[in-house]
């Protein structure tokens, strides 16, 4: 109670609003004092505002739903990686939106041995009538052309431009070089971080995923067994890598696409059996046999890119 008045003091009011212990005398007073009730209500409104802001601030983007392939959920570090990358997807929408306008890829279709392109290997994309996609494995890269082999054995030739979005994943540990900006997710032990996933990007995503240690910064001391991440605060975190470490490179070059890697191309069909695609992606976590079917809300580049990234990296 306030020594200078008969009303509750600030400490009692705050305690009341935050649910902390309030003295019996103060509680009795509050029950019968309209002025103190009004004051408590005002503080409650402030508290609600702060709590709402806190709840909004702490929201971590939900990972995108995995493709409906009937496969079992990924386990262990791969599941963590999938969750992490799922959260990355949402943060990428704006980045992708920038590149998508100019990032067209020309896809040429041809059946094995036919060379005619009469047998389409593309699947339609629900939600946007003209949009189509091709899934498969990277057969080879010929100059600016990327050749994808579908599950049925047909070959899809993808012609890229300098502005095409290319994301590569696979055995790319050698591409983690000093000065690269990375986000690393993994498990910590003995002061070191054993990397499950390394994302190399000039604009690395923000990760805040419970249950996984993540570090973001610049690579130093890159070597065969790992590297050091230097955070923006100057902290140095040693990172160990292994054959199980997945590496994803955003905005990769054609030479970084991995032969045999699961690959997805999405775009619009053009004249003469060609397709102007929007992106070619090699997600880090697609199991063998998965066939991801893209679905978009509408034909806007933002919606398309959001779903592309969610499908490719959402698990």
């Amino acid at each position, binding site marked *: 109670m306030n020594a200078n008045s008969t009303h509750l003091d600030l400490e009692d009011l705050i305690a009341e609003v935050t649910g902390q212990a309030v003295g019996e005398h103060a509680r009795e007073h509050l029950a019968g004092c309209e002025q103190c009730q009004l004051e408590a209500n005002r503080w409650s409104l*402030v508290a609600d505002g702060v709590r709402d802001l806190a709840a909004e*601030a702490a929201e971590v983007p939900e990972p995108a739903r995995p493709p409906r392939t009937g496969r079992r959920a990924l386990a262990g570090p791969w599941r963590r990686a999938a969750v992490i990358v799922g959260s990355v997807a949402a943060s990428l929408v704006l980045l992708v939106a920038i590149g998508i306008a100019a990032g067209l890829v020309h896809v040429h279709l041809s059946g094995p041995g036919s060379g005619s392109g009469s047998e389409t290997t593309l699947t339609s994309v629900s939600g946007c009538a003209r949009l189509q996609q091709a899934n498969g494995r990277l057969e080879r890269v010929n100059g600016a052309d990327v050749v994808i082999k579908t599950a049925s054995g047909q070959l899809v030739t993808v012609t890229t431009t300098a502005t095409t979005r290319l994301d590569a994943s696979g055995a790319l540990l050698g591409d983690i070089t000093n000065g690269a900006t990375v986000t690393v997710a993994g498990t*910590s032990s003995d002061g070191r971080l054993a990397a499950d996933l390394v994302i190399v990007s000039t604009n690395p995503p923000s990760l805040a995923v419970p249950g996984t240690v993540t*570090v973001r910064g610049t690579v130093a001391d890159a070597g065969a067994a790992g590297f050091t991440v230097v955070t*923006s605060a100057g*902290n140095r975190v040693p990172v160990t890598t292994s054959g199980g470490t997945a590496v994803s490179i955003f905005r990769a070059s054609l030479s970084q696409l991995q032969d045999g890697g699961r690959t997805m191309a999405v775009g619009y069909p053009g004249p003469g059996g060609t397709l102007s695609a929007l992106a070619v992606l090699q997600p880090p976590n697609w199991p063998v046999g998965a066939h991801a079917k893209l679905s978009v809300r509408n034909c806007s580049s933002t919606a398309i890119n959001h779903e592309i990234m969610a499908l490719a990296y959402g698990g």
Partner: protein
Amino acid sequence: MNDPHRNSGAAAFADRRDSACDDAELLRRISKGDEDAMAAFYREHGKVVLAQVLLVTGERVLAEEIVQDTMLAVWRGAASFRGESSVRSWVIAIARRQTRDRLRGRALRVVDDAFLADQPSSNPGPEVMALDRAKLAEVKGAIQGLASAHRELLGLVFGSGLSLREAADVLEIPVGTVKSRLSAARTALNRILNEKGQNL
């Protein structure tokens, strides 16, 4: 009063008390290199710390980096926790130091508590009445318009659930200053709402 939020606040407070021992045990395990304990610690405190830091900095990426550095500091310094404060206030104090270090060099808005201090009045003026008329969304917007020192304190007390004493410890100021700053924060909040002419 029939404020539904009171119950949630009481429940949260009870949860905090129940988890106090668990928190200390988590830190003990973290100090021995237990990764699962670190993950559990992150789940327990990560969102609260992020919300608090974001409330102060207003920059999502920066806030996430600060949380990252805070958790690294916890991983490395768990053994230094001596139980002289709650774990929640301990980790928030770490985050606050990380935030201060990051923001050092930036032009900070200095808040003069004496200037802004408000004495409780039995006759609420128009600024107080503004809060009576305001909707939650308007209050949230006004909170974001407060000076960082005010946002920080409101976050500690209402977001992180610290007692006034704990908030004082984190901020390294007397409890009396915490009270006057709280009052000043609400006065400023009312002023913002009143200036915007927001009413129902």
